[in-house]
């Protein structure tokens, strides 16, 4: 009987070529069960402060969630982490798909990669062991070719190939990782870190076997999995994700007046009808894909062909890309949006930061801060499809004006000068996702305090918690939420709700559960998650212990950032959000600076963080069994 974990991890030094297998015991995993917690532990212990993100000493961690690979819908995710070149702080990005489960069944919870290879290599992990192989012939090639070539070389079509693309090779600061050409660790520039190490790919093949061999109570876990798979179709929220994926959001956010439009100037887009779900379904949808053992099947894939010669090999745009390259860039052509998404996927870079940085440049262009002379002739007006697509190409290859944009909107704004920084809609250097906090206050708080920069998946969106009789709020009551509150409200009780939900979502990243699994976002109830952990591990955990696991992981990321010099002044929102929305049905809505600062102070108090610095207090660290991280 196991505890849901192999206990083992691989340590790889690309400089010397040394590869070692190491392990940690069960008591360690109870504190740091996987994913975000495991990655944070290794980054804190093995990375000196102020390490150059592109230097050989930066540590790239691939860490599985505790439940990743188990026969549970949405238990698919792994964390990729390093010091982020985009933010300079704690860098983290999760992905679902198949890589994590394959790594688990290959025998490892994590892979730690340090050093820099003299020439391009890829790491192969499989039944025969782990070896580094030459990748000189793969450098510069597209993911589709690279995946085929590696599978051919290893003689196995089932090898999972996690790889960088052109953007990672060129160290675009928001370069991503992909595997299966469909699944992305999108945020924080982890792909650029991997590229700086001359590591093209990590190929993994399991030994065979199954998660049940690792589990404490495999039959109980299987029974839970079967029941939850049925719940997917019987629960309204997961039914919706199954039917429409994330793209149902376009119509709803437009109707609510918070669909990011023209670089977050407005919350309403005149062309919304042309890019919302119904249009998506008619114009570009081919079919839906999925992740390992997941009945939700939320991932859209587009039809090949059309005016932009779309390639279905790279999946299809999720909501973030549709709004990012659509409303936020003023584009109402789904074919063009799908092409921009495909280019990002082919070059392997984050669709959110790419599209938001282009929207920023369009705003600067329309305000006369840059012109054709600076952009090399790119007519970067909102709505110009050709200019948008050219900008994507130039960013990936760091050519022309794209070289500036490849450093993200904050650095580009600093280079452009004037008041350009007011148009950079980012936090800690990372661009906002396509969710406007002027209509959902908790999302703004999350953007501000997130250790990895603006991130929309650090807590629950307020909209789910407005009505006491709604499915969403009822799902959250098990976390201890007492009252349903209006989405735009930011009072002390809202902050308390945020805090509990943040610990819950952090736990999801530790367990390897997708955001589209647990309540209040989807079908898996709080009691189910506790039952899953108990069945997998045999530990007598309760909800409070699990919430502390999530809180511990967040605090480790916060300590990492404190060591790097981050403080309260970095937990701030971009200027644009304090301005009124210029359009949409709630035009005029803005965030109050006074209310926001009060909320931040209250959140620090609840978290046990110093109100001036934003650093965890010694008492808080001790209470989370992190006393060893107390500095000075």
């Amino acid at each position, binding site marked *: 009987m196991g505890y849901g974990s192999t206990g083992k991890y691989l340590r790889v030094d690309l400089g010397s070529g040394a590869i070692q297998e190491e392990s940690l015991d069960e008591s360690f995993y109870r504190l740091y069960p996987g994913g975000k917690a495991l990655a944070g532990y290794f980054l804190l212990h093995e990375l000196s402060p102020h390490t150059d993100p592109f230097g050989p000493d930066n540590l790239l961690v691939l860490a599985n969630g505790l439940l990743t690979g188990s026969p549970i819908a949405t238990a698919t995710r792994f964390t990729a982490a390093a010091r982020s070149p985009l933010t300079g702080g704690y860098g983290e990005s999760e992905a679902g798909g198949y890589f994590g489960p394959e790594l688990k069944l290959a025998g490892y919870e994590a892979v730690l990669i340090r050093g820099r290879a003299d020439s391009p290599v890829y790491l192969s992990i499989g039944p025969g062991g782990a070896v580094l192989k030459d990748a000189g012939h793969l450098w510069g090639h597209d993911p589709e070719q690279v995946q085929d070539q590696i599978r051919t070389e290893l003689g196995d079509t089932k090898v999972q190939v996690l790889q960088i693309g052109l953007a990672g090779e060129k160290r675009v600061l928001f370069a991503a990782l992909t595997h299966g050409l469909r699944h992305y660790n999108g945020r924080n520039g982890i792909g650029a870190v991997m590229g700086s190490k001359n590591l093209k790919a990590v190929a993994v093949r399991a030994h065979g076997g199954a998660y049940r061999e690792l589990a404490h109570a495999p039959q109980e876990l299987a029974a839970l999995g079967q029941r939850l798979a049925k719940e997917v179709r019987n629960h309204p929220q997961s039914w919706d994700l199954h039917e429409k994926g994330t793209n149902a959001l376009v119509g709803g956010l437009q109707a609510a007046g918070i669909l990011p439009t023209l670089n977050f100037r407005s919350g309403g887009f005149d062309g919304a009808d042309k890019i919302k779900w119904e249009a998506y379904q008619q114009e570009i949808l081919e079919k839906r894909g999925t992740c390992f053992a997941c009945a939700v099947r939320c991932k859209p894939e587009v039809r090949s062909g059309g005016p932009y010669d779309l390639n279905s090999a790279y999946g299809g745009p999720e909501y973030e890309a549709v709004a990012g390259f659509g409303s936020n860039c003023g584009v109402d052509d789904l074919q063009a949006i799908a092409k921009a998404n495909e280019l990002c996927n082919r070059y392997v870079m984050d669709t959110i930061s790419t599209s938001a940085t282009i929207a920023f440049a369009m705003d600067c262009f329309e305000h006369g801060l840059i012109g054709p002379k600076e952009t090399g002739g790119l007519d970067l007006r909102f709505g110009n499809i050709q200019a948008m697509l050219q900008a994507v190409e130039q960013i990936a290859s760091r050519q022309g004006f794209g070289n500036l944009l490849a450093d993200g909107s904050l650095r580009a704004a600093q280079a452009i000068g004037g008041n350009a920084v007011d148009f950079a809609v980012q936090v800690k250097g990372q661009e906002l996702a396509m969710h406007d906090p002027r209509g959902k206050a908790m999302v703004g708080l999350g953007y501000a305090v997130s250790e990895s920069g603006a991130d929309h998946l650090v807590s629950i969106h307020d909209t789910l918690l407005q*009505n006491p009789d709604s*499915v969403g709020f009822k799902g959250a009551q098990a976390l201890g939420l007492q009252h349903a509150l209006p989405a735009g409200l930011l009072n002390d009780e809202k902050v308390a709700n945020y805090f509990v939900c943040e610990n819950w979502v952090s736990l999801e990243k530790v367990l390897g559960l997708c955001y589209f699994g647990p309540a209040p976002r989807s079908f898996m109830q709080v009691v189910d998650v506790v039952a899953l952990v108990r069945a997998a591990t045999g530990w007598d955990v309760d909800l409070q212990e699990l919430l502390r696991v999530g809180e511990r992981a967040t605090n480790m990321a916060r300590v990492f950032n404190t060591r790097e010099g981050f403080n309260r002044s970095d937990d701030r929102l971009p200027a644009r959000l304090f301005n009124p929305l210029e359009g949409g049905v709630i035009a005029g809505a803005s965030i109050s600076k006074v209310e926001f600062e009060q909320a931040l102070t209250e959140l620090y108090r609840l978290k046990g963080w110093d109100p001036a610095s934003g650093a965890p207090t010694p008492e808080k660290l001790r209470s989370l069994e992190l006393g060893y991280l107390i500095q000075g």
Partner: protein
Amino acid sequence: MLELHLGGHLAFYAPQKQSRFNIPIDQPTDLGLILQQLGVPLAEVAIVAVNGELVDLASTRVKPGDRVELYPPMGGG
């Protein structure tokens, strides 16, 4: 006739999980009543737009020719 669209997971509750309806009405009618007849729980309705304007579900009566869009709470992702 009333043109009614159930966005997001609201269609989950409707007959045959349909999302679009043309509902015959010939006089101003309580929107909540129409939704109850369709089986849509009012607690799941977060956004109501009639002819593009946000309105409050509790006090809304719709009339022939109106275009009604309804959405549930939209979470992230």
